[in-house]
């Protein structure tokens, strides 16, 4: 007999316990106990914690832990269809954008794509040195035949970082305007930042099919949006109080103040947030290759799974090179903004 039988007997719950499910499936422990036939020899040393499984042994009416996990799964599956009706159309543009971007960046011939990218670099940095650096890095990647993978990774980063800014900056602005909003959003940001990415990959897999790009798109965005939100909020709150007072004294409206004073003065901080968002997108794209995100991450994964050391190392090197390039470019853009208003 089980350890906790006595408890239920003295409480007079025996009838309730045996009421329904005598034919319930056995737990693994029961099976083991049956085969080895050492049922009654539980020593004091093995005295079990009153867990669901242990209590179930004594009283059939109490569910097993297995029932809990299955119940959660069933509940989630039941919710899924409802959730999908709402979330699917909302996130559909993300799938679409990712597909298009991947298509454009991998299908355009390299001799067009590379100059376009370098022009883009020049446009945001205005520094030929950085253009040269990026050109060198991309050339190295292309030389070892990782050009296609690198373009896939970049395409995902561009789309996700863009959406992060698109959503994150307005959230940051709202937070800076209302302390209540800030109190609500900060715990959510903390949670997104501390949760290991694997944990929220699990529900996402259930919600969307693995073949859809938005699955990893959402994972990347959730992970990378935090810094741009935080730094937009911080940047606007840090704008010189005297300047804000002057704006008020000359009768600016809230919007004139926001777009004419606060955002321009918070821009260095916002750009620092964008830089971090891009770097975190890159980190997450690699992890998201486990849920079918294409790009260099796939190769790293192959290196781990098949113990192909060389493949993994080269792909890892590619990621480092991309990271340096992205960081340099966004930092240079940031420095440019700083220089144009180096009053403080």
């Amino acid at each position, binding site marked *: 007999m089980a350890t906790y039988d006595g408890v239920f007997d003295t409480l007079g719950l025996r009838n309730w316990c045996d009421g329904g499910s005598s034919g319930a499936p056995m737990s693994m422990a029961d099976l083991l106990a049956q085969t080895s036939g050492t049922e009654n020899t539980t020593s004091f040393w093995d005295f079990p914690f009153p867990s669901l499984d242990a209590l179930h042994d004594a009283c059939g009416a109490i569910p097993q832990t297995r029932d809990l996990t299955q119940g959660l799964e069933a509940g989630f599956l039941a919710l899924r269809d409802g959730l999908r009706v709402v979330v699917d159309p909302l996130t559909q543009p993300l799938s679409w954008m990712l597909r298009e971007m991947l298509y454009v960046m991998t299908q355009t011939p390299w001799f067009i794509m590379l100059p376009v990218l370098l022009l883009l670099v020049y446009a945001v940095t205005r520094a030929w040195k950085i253009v040269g650096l990026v050109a060198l890095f991309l050339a190295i990647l292309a030389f070892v035949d990782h050009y296609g993978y690198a373009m896939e990774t970049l395409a995902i980063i561009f789309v996700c970082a863009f959406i992060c800014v698109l959503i994150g900056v307005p959230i940051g602005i709202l937070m800076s305007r209302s302390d209540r909003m800030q109190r609500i959003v900060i715990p959510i940001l903390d949670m997104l930042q501390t949760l290991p990415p694997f944990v929220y990959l699990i529900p996402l897999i259930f919600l969307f099919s693995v073949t859809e790009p938005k699955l990893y798109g959402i994972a990347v965005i959730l992970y990378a949006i935090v810094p741009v939100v935080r730094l937009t909020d911080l940047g606007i709150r840090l704008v*010189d109080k*005297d*300047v804000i*007072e*002057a*704006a*008020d*004294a*000359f*009768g*600016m*409206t809230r919007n*004139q103040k926001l777009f*004419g*004073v606060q955002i*321009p*003065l918070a821009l260095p901080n916002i750009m620092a947030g964008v830089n971090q968002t891009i770097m975190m997108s890159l980190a997450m794209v690699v992890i998201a290759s486990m849920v079918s995100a294409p790009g260099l991450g796939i190769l790293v994964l192959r290196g781990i799974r098949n113990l192909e050391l060389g493949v993994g190392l080269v792909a890892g090197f590619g990621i480092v090179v991309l990271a340096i390039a992205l960081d340099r470019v966004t930092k240079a853009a940031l420095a440019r903004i700083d220089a*144009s*208003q*180096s*009053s*403080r």
Partner: protein
Amino acid sequence: MTDKNIKVSIRHLYKIFGEDPASALKDVKGGLSKADLLETRNHVLGLNDINVDIKEGEITVIMGLSGSGKSTLIRHLNRLIEPTAGEVLVEGEDILKWNTRRMRKLRRESMSMVFQKFALLPHRTVLENAGMALATRGRKRAEYEGEANKWLDRVGLGGYGGQYPHQLSGGQQQRVGIARALTSNSDIMLMDEAFSALDPLIRTDMQDLLLELQDELHKTIVFITHDLDEALKLADHLVILNNGAIVQQGEPQKILLDPADPYIEDFVADINRARVLRVRSVMEKTPPEGEVSGEVDHDATLESVIADAQGQMDRRFRVMRRGRAVGTIEMPEIMRALVPAKSSAEAEESSDTAA
């Protein structure tokens, strides 16, 4: 001179900082002091029953030590701070009853402000800063450019329009601040320690500039300072603030000759009276009969009269105002005026020791 219109009028204004100003107000009206209020109720008494009439076309200077509530007071005039109780009348209307739209119009069109730390927009050029008030009203750059350039020229910054504020010196930045206020073409200018961040020489320049502009424009200016020399140089009407309450207000010369309070006596003790006091406030109001040593203007400083007299004590001057004799001044009177009136407390003390 005395029958100028009252432009802004502050009536029984109270400001208490803290959790529950309304109930603290009752205690303050019941006579609780600033220190006691802070100790027993943890509220800060910012302003305590302020009454000031600000006359059109005059410079009203509000003076007080740090923490006396000057900035708090001036910010009530354009409602950057809301009072706990009281009224602020602009041309007879209580602006505290106005809605946001009307208030915004007032700030855009009739009141401009100059700040201690300049508070220019760092990401805009000097020209755009000067035109800020007009731009805020929705004017395009082409429309405000002329006006902004005119005032930049006027404050001595012609040709600097394309620079950014951080490329200018402190004095130049404050000139932009003044140009910004002038470009808005408002009749009231609020200046919160506008020259306090500048070094003494630049500061004198800026004071002269302000007086020169005022001669021409006759704005209603409220000027805040903690510097008595500056206050005496600029003020038509001087308000002295201490711990959030007015200790004395009136014509600066009167305050100097007849301080109402030991606090003000301390304040005026170190001033160079010869350079500040004017003949008109010391003279006898009857024109002289018989022999005089010369004529002096009624607005001349005592210093200049002493120089005219070459230090001789037996000189007598006819005081002239716009070509008419309005009074007499004798050297002994001047000498007496140069020594601050002894406060009653001090006088008693010295008589005690003598006895």
